């Protein structure tokens, strides 16, 4: 059959229709359930995929054109930043540790998000969401790439950035973000969309991405700041998609509500636990602070999120229950997190330190209810000891939560002096949790979480030493072997910032750039 070429140029809307949904077809000799095998088992009922409202009308060719232009600009700035030794313009070399945290903790998640959206994009029978997921999957791999490219410049000068992906898959605390995303991509397509598309991208993104980007801006890191801004227009699209998914699922069938509510509860908590890393970054790792974690939580979750959940009330969705506990933790989260990293500073791919006098005063001002009472005495003691050459390095491995994989560092809701312990017996095994919420997530799907790759247990099983290591030989040093397995060089990549090679080099190079020597 000859195609009838149209003389008239198509309008944007028609063009979108033809180039996206118009490319779909109804199969005639294959069954729908064979083509889309994952769409029913989660219990979500969709009656009419055509009811999907496309949140942004973008065709593939427009996508390429637009992104290519953005990236040309981005790479021009990154190049200029690198050529002008922009890294020497950051506030203080301690700042670079936030970049190390970002590249090893967050950028690999961009890549997994890419894989996740590719996967679910294949699984949805509706052409509208399939196209949206395809574009988001491309956004995510671009984010991973641009982040790696911008941050690679730091790798030329500073320690700990050299093997971020290897680190992500192995280092004890990086199992927290890693297992979060592994949990999401091993769920069904609808849960993935609620987990990542809605809870992560819509509800929590302002608490993850924005603090890093504005932290970069405040601290003179143009490279990081620029990729942040470049990703911003994608983020707006992702947020719209996340919200559209929730509304679409809920409008399709009333039976979907309890399932979606449970996912929102679960993923808000899972996401919040990952944000522990951001909380300490904001309050401790940025030499020039943007705002405190507590303030960020109040603005971005309590105010903005509150308005969102009010909006969703018409579908029957309520504010996740965990919000109450999070409100109790906001005075403590960042301090408990930084204490943890200070404890285990011999096993991290970035440096740790004690806040100086001014920084302690800032913490007192931002956390009048908690800092002086619960955390200052501990810090002052550590600081005194460090000054005497007795810097605290905790060498004994901690007990972990089976769900979020964070050590049991969180205190009882309402009592910051007592560690919160929770446990469950399942099929002759004991499992431990940091909180009621992590426990409830486990109890709903124990078979999933019994498989967790818990870094501490893996070390004790002997699975975290370089190949060929014999742990039975005289004088075997397990921690040294674990650092080798992590590809971390003891004394360079880890330990206190004070006395580090990063500190020394930065001072020397900045001196060369600003003084006559």
């Amino acid at each position, binding site marked *: 059959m000859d195609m009838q070429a149209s003389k008239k140029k198509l309008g944007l809307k028609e063009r979108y229709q033809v180039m996206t949904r118009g490319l779909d077809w109804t199969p005639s000799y294959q069954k729908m359930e064979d083509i889309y095998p994952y769409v029913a088992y989660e219990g979500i009922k969709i009656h009419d995929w055509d009811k999907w409202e496309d949140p942004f009308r973008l065709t593939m060719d427009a996508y390429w054109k637009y992104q290519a232009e953005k990236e040309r600009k981005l790479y021009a700035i990154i190049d200029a930043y690198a050529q002008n030794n922009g890294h020497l313009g950051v506030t203080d070399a301690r700042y670079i540790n936030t970049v190390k945290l970002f590249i090893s903790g967050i950028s690999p998640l961009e890549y997994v998000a890419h894989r996740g959206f590719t996967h679910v994009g294949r699984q949805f029978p509706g052409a509208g969401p399939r196209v949206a997921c395809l574009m988001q999957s491309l956004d995510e791999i671009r984010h991973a790439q641009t982040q790696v490219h911008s941050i690679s410049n730091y790798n030329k000068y500073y320690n700990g950035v050299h093997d971020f992906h290897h680190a992500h898959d192995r280092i004890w605390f990086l199992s927290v973000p890693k297992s979060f995303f592994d949990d999401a991509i091993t769920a069904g397509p609808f849960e993935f969309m609620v987990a990542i598309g809605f809870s992560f991208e819509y509800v929590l993104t302002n608490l993850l991405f924005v603090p890093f980007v504005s932290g970069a801006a405040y601290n003179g890191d143009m490279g990081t700041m620029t990729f942040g801004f470049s990703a911003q227009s994608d983020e707006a699209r992702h947020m719209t998609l996340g919200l559209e998914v929730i509304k679409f699922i809920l409008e399709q069938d009333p039976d979907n509500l309890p399932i979606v509510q449970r996912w929102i509860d679960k993923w808000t908590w899972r996401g919040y636990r990952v944000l522990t890393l951001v909380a300490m970054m904001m309050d401790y790792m940025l030499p020039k602070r943007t705002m405190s974690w507590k303030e960020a939580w109040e603005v971005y979750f309590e105010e903005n999120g509150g308005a969102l959940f009010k909006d969703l009330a018409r579908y029957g969705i309520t504010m996740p229950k965990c919000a109450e506990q999070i409100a109790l933790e906001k005075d403590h989260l960042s301090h408990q997190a930084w204490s*943890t990293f200070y404890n285990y500073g011999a096993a991290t791919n970035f440096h740790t330190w004690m806040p100086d006098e001014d920084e302690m005063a800032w913490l007192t001002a931002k956390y009048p209810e908690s800092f002086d009472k619960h955390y200052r005495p501990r810090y002052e003691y550590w600081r005194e000891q460090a000054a005497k050459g007795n810097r605290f390095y*905790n060498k004994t491995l901690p007990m972990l939560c089976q769900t979020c994989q964070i050590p049991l560092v969180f205190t009882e809701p309402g009592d910051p002096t007592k560690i919160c312990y929770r446990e469950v017996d399942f099929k002759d095994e004991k499992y431990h949790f940091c909180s009621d919420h992590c426990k409830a997530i486990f109890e709903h799907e124990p078979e999933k979480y019994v498989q967790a790759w818990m870094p501490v247990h893996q070390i004790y099983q002997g699975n975290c030493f370089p190949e060929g290591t014999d742990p039975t030989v005289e004088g075997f040093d397990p921690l040294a072997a674990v650092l080798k397995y992590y590809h971390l060089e003891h004394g360079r990549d880890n330990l206190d910032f004070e006395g580090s090679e990063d500190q020394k080099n930065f001072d020397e190079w900045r001196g060369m750039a600003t003084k006559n020597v």
Partner: protein
Amino acid sequence: MAVAAIGKYEFAPADAIDKFHGAQLLYIGWEDHLLFCAPFAFPFPPSMPFGAIVEQVLPGAFGYHPDFARIDWSKAEWLKSGKPWTPEFSKSLEENGLRHKDVIRFRTPGLTGIKGSCS
């Protein structure tokens, strides 16, 4: 609840006792001493006497704290899974009823951390 899945969904737990080369895991926390950010995880042979943990292992794990040297072990109060419990120091972990992945805590009355802050 069972995991929603497209087929049978059953997997062996990743941390069963047979994976630990003859050891079992024991978690130990010291109440009111958050200088140590979390309770510790240890692999111990089930035949190890409980007293050996207190004498040979805990000093290495908790000894950095100035309170540690002041502990009177005869006054220490123990909890197992959050409930009061009394260990017998001369008996083994197994004889003390400690199983793989049990969690115990001890409280040391009168010792409440750096400047009484529970740190």
